Every structure is written in structure tokens, then in C-alpha cells.
């Protein structure tokens, strides 16, 4: 299987770095965007196999990203919400995304989720 590409969308710089470092160590190709608008642009070029998405972000937030990403042309990657908001699971269900991980999380949980959803 070719190297899987993961797009991380999180406005918290340190969490972006953490996800990037963890996924790079696990052999994934990773791109990080600090907000929904930048992520939409990056998704077009990077063509991710999976999007890890924060919900609460300035500007285009997680919900805005999901709506715009689904409207955009081209193949769509599964999306997993990674968030510290209360009821992240309920929010993820409303958005109809494929996975959810509540912050703070275990790295094993993250890697299991990514392995499952980025399989293609």
C-alpha cells in the first residue's frame, strides 16, 4: 500500500505539532493546517486519505470545513473529529463524519483510529 496521507486541521499549534510528529513516526505523510480555510486549500493539493479535524477554530471551523469539503469536487477522504468540545461524539454524529477522538487521547487510540480509517 502506498504511503497514506493525513491532513491535520487544528488551530492549536502545539497539538498540530504533536499529531504531525506522532503520525510521521508511524510512517504517514502529514500536512497540517491551522484552520478550516487553509485546510480546504491544502486538501486540494495534498489529496489526503484521511482528515483529522478539530471543531472549535477561529474563521472556518470544523463544521464549516465539513460542509465546504463535501461540496468541493473530487474524491473525498473520510474525516475524524479530534476535539476537546463537550459532547464531541454527538457533534461528530451530527456532522456525519467517520470517526471521533476526544481530547485528551492516548496516542494508541489515535494511531488505531488512523490505521482503521486511512486504509483506503
Amino acid at each position, binding site marked *: 500500500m502506498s504511503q497514506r496521507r493525513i491532513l491535520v486541521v487544528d*488551530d*492549536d499549534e*502545539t*497539538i498540530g*505539532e*504533536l499529531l504531525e*510528529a*506522532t503520525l510521521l*513516526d508511524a510512517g504517514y505523510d502529514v500536512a497540517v493546517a491551522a484552520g478550516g480555510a487553509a485546510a480546504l486549500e491544502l486538501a486540494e493539493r495534498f489529496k489526503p486519505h484521511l482528515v483529522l479535524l478539530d471543531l*472549535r*477554530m*477561529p*474563521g472556518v*471551523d470544523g463544521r464549516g470545513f465539513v460542509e465546504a469539503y463535501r461540496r468541493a469536487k473530487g474524491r473525498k477522504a473520510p474525516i475524524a473529529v479530534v476535539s*476537546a*468540545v*463537550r459532547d464531541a461524539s454527538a457533534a461528530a454524529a451530527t456532522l456525519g463524519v467517520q470517526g471521533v477522538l476526544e*481530547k*485528551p*487521547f*492516548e*496516542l494508541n487510540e489515535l494511531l488505531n483510529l488512523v490505521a482503521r480509517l486511512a486504509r483506503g
Partner: protein
Amino acid sequence: MARRATSGARRGKRADLSAANQRLRAEIAERRRAEALRDEFLSIAAHELKTPLTSLRGFAQLLMRQLDKDEVPDPMRLRQGLSAIDQQSAKLARLVSQLLDVSRIDAGRLELDRKVADVVGVVEDVVTTARVNTFRHEFTVRAPSGALALVDPLRLEQVVRNLVDNAIRYSPDGGPITIEVEKSRGAGVVTIAVADRGLGVPREHRGRIFDRFHQAHPERAMGGMGLGLYISRQIVELHGGRIEAEYPEQGGTRMVVTLPTGAPTGKSE
């Protein structure tokens, strides 16, 4: 006659009941509003506390995974991880301190430890730290060589840091941040003004920016718990001073703190 008096008394009672009913409804509405605000605050506070916790646990686990694999951790990765743990634990400590401050204010136990200190020195220390943390903002400090006042220097630093942090946070595209210190010997006051050219405060939020839990840009999810200005105002008022917001025509916000240089009251109300 007696019947008329009775019916008048009944009307009076009905009016009393109606007024009491209205008061009760207003109280219930106010209580619900306060509960909704507290609920929203708890939700935001939990989010704000979980975010640094995620980085703390994550980087600790990442470094441990490398050690478990008997790998010598890459020095760059080690530095990145330890630096994140250091910064995020400091952030967490600041958030917890804010919560404790609010609890102290509620109990009337926020106290000052005043001594003669140089306000300019306090301001310069805050700006020096802020400069390291942002590359997009240009800081200008206009201040006399010194301005002595009887203040709690740590609490004053907390106020100035909060104002400078807000100036940075609410000008997300960068820009100038100007800090001015002026002393007026005649009036016995020193003023500290922090001005940015950022988002400003929407008109409908201006009356409430010093309220507990209030966020001026809730839709932007810019972080913070809505406590910084509330705590700052309490600290400034404990010093016998005042804090005001100005909204310059060219945009942004200018926060002005005026402190007496002498000896004000000691405890919170």
C-alpha cells in the same frame, strides 16, 4: 360600603400578587440566564483545560514510545517535546490560577502585597516576554525612565500581561501594539495604555467586556475563558484605580489603566 371596601382590598391583593408574580418571573429568567452562562463557561473552561493537557500527555507518550523502542530520542524531537511540555504546563498553570483568582474574588479574599515598584519596569518585562512569543506584532513602548508607585508588582504584571495578551490575540493578522506609560505627579496617578489595531470589540459587547465569563468574540473561538479582564478590573480596583476601554477611530482597542501612586484600600469588596 363594606362590600366596596372588600372588593377594593381584593383588587389591591390581586395587584400585589401580579407584581410578585412578575418579580418571580424576572428572578427565574435571571437565574436561568446565570445558569446558561455558567454552563457555557464550564464548557469553555473544560475545552481550554483539555487542550494543553492533550499536548502534555501526547508529547510525554511520544517520547516514552521512542525510549520503549530502545531508540535514542532524536535531540530535535526531544527538545520539541520537552519545550511543548514546559509551555503547555505553564499555560495550564495560568488557567488554573485564573480559576483560583475568581474563587478568591467571590470569597472577598483577593489581597494585594504592595510595595514601591517601578511600573515602567513591570511593563518592559511583560513586553520583553511578549516579543519572544509573536513575530507578527510590532511593539512600541513609550514610557518615562521610571514611574514609582505603591503597587503589588506581581498582580500589576498579571494585569499588563493580560492586556498585552489580549492585544495579540485580538489582532490575529499582526500589526502594531503600543504601550504607553505616563505619570502625572500633580494628580498622583500613573496610567498604562495598551493599544492594538486589531478586531476591536463589537458595539453590542462593549458594555460587558469586564463581566465575568464574557467573551467579546465568542463566534471566533479565539481561546481564553472570559476571565482575564474581569480579574484585571478587580486587581486595578483593589489598588484604588480604574480600567477603561477606548475604541479609536482607526480601529482596534485601547485599554487604559489608571493607578494612584500612593496607598489605596487593601481588600476586595
